[in-house]
């Protein structure tokens, strides 16, 4: 009986290139293996409509749940016998947290300009394959502000306060 385990979380663009990825399993021991996986997975799911509801597929004996928005493709991978609904909860947490952090403009450009937020987001969701947090408000809150008690779900006002800090990131463009 094992603890639910996440094998990877991928954020790819609409051509299958990496925006931000995190692997938690040795099954992909080097970068070329990872890239091959990403390309195949992207190709296999590209034509499906995963924009309204999260979609699901079996791929190379893994379960993959995924969701698309604008030119971003979100993926979460688990083992073949994993509870699919747990996987989709993680996916939704990541997806919604990114939506909060990017203040509703969820596309590749915004993601790259706020890559630090995306990477911190990933860091708050899964640690070494173990789920840390699935609530998008909590995740976004922890990322956007460090002075607020991380465990308390944020009210709308505190979120906008917190995201004002994030906007500051944006202002200092990566020149």
């Amino acid at each position: 009986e094992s603890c639910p385990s996440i094998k990877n979380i991928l954020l790819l663009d609409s051509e299958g290139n990496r925006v931000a990825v995190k692997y938690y399993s040795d099954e992909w021991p080097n970068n070329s293996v990872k890239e091959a996986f990403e390309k195949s997975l992207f190709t296999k799911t590209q034509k499906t409509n995963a924009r309204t509801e999260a979609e699901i597929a079996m791929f190379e004996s893994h379960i993959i749940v995924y969701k698309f928005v604008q030119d971003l493709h979100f993926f979460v991978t688990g083992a073949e016998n994993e509870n699919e609904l747990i996987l989709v909860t993680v996916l939704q947490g990541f997806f919604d947290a990114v939506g909060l952090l990017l203040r509703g403009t969820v596309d590749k450009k915004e993601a790259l300009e706020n890559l630090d937020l995306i990477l911190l987001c990933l860091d708050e969701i899964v640690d070494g394959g173990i789920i840390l947090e699935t609530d998008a408000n909590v995740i976004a809150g922890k990322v956007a502000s460090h002075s607020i008690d991380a465990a308390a779900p944020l009210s709308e006002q505190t979120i906008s306060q917190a995201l004002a800090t994030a906007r500051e990131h944006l202002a200092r463009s990566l020149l």
Partner: protein
Amino acid sequence: VDYSPFLGIEKGAVLQEARVFNDPQLDPRRCSQVITKLLYLLNQGETFTKVEATEVFFAVTKLFQSRDMGLRRMVYVIIKELSPSADEVIIVTSSLMKDMTSKTDMYRANAIRVLCRITDGTLLTQIERYLKQAIVDKNPVVASAALVSGIHLLQTNPEIVKRWSNEVQEAVQSRAALVQFHALALLHQIRQNDRLAVNKLVSSLTRGSVRSPLAQCLLIRYTSQVIRESTNDTQTGDRPFYDFLEGCLRHKAEMVIFEAARAITELNGVTSRELTPAITVLQLFLSSSKPVLRFAAVRTLNKVAMSHPTAVTNCNIDMESLISDQNRSIATLAITTLLKTGNESSVDRLMKQITNFMSDIADEFKIVVVDAIRSLCLKFPLKHRSLMNFLSNILREEGGFEYKKAIVDSIVILIRDIPEAKESGLLHLCEFIEDCEFTYLSTQILHFLGIEGPKTSDPSKYIRYIYNRVHLENATVRAGAVSTLAKFGAMVDGLKPRIFVLLRRCLFDNDDEVRDRATLYLNTLGGDGAVVETDDGVKEFLFGSLDVPLVNLENSLKNYNPSEKAFDINSVPKDVKTQPLAEKKATSKKPTGLGAPPPGP
């Protein structure tokens, strides 16, 4: 133009930029940006040499001097990404230990995660005290950080982590949802070999309060484990803890409902009565608007259908509507489930629905369906005609090698196992090779025809198909056809005159293998075209199997030194040191069809 803030980014330039980490007056925002760039490079698969990685790491350690929280947060992330070696770790240990006891919760939580990621055994004993305190920390983020780190550390330093049992036990009682989840996971892993302890844990929690769906899912899994390991008190009523599982079917979180339903379907020797509430719930999921729910349900029901098909028949209507599901995995699972639960009278209707469906799906799904159809045919052999027709039709349509091979294998198995299907099956295969693009399949089928054809009531009807291959195909197939013709001639004396005529024509073939084979058979079958019996020894020589592996024979021949002593085939070793092929196949044992193709050129 594809805009990216990282356009033109280059590792060397970023490493130069990282020098700002050494500034006496640190600019936190600037440093954060550089870290982001470094993380971007790492994420994109850029490789850092050992020297570069070490330099970056040392530079990053300087950033502990800044009190900026945003920067510190980025430092934690990049330290983990750089995975410093043991001797490098020492540089940051004291800074991290300081953070581990900081008043700032975020520092404590993250420093714990970083330290436990990069630590070794000796450092661990030094910080153990703080980790134990952290597990029962008031702040849930800190507690979770310590517990999750404990789960990881259990792999490398189990003796140390096991000493934290008391604290972990206390954390299981935490009111914070995820702390309980993490504590439960860790406690179970610590105690998993102690059956009694797990039993106690499950007993108390199934009666107590579980504060998150994730923890509830864990509890369901552990409960299943306890049920599995408990001695079977089959006489006295219900299974232990079955009521708990059944109760979870009414939980408000879907992940819990599903986990419980699945757990029930996987109980050892589960009865129909026990299954019913689980199947009811799964049936509801089948009509959900969410693909993930439909998929989870149909996948589970598909498995149940293997052992308890009647329990799933109530879902047939819902299954049938899933055949047109946009998600092809769901559709395929629905079809294969129906193929398992269908009865003889529904077979024809099912085949009609599947025919439309097949053109819509990819080869990998088609193969799954083909396997299911084969199983169905073996289950209802009287239906062989329509099922065989179906297989023959799809064989003639578009498809890749693996898919066609799967169909051919299925037809071969049906021919072998259902005597009434043999003649029509062989004819279907004959028709297929008239238009087959895969040399491997053609030759294997010809070989198979050579074995089965002569045994039928009227072998002559296959001759035309086989001989046509000698005209129309490539050399490999032609050679195979020649051998098959000879086989017919050897086994069926009455056909010898006709076979000899055909074989003589093959003597004029362009290819020498074809000519050689024809020559061999003409000279050994005997009778020169008359209706005589072929000697058993000749049959064995021509068509018997080679007793030794080809590889060994080749090696022995190479090692043979020409001398007066003739080469002795009995000296060839019979066993082969096989190199295990990496086979990523499902665990189910498939009945073999024609056999695996040889490794390609």
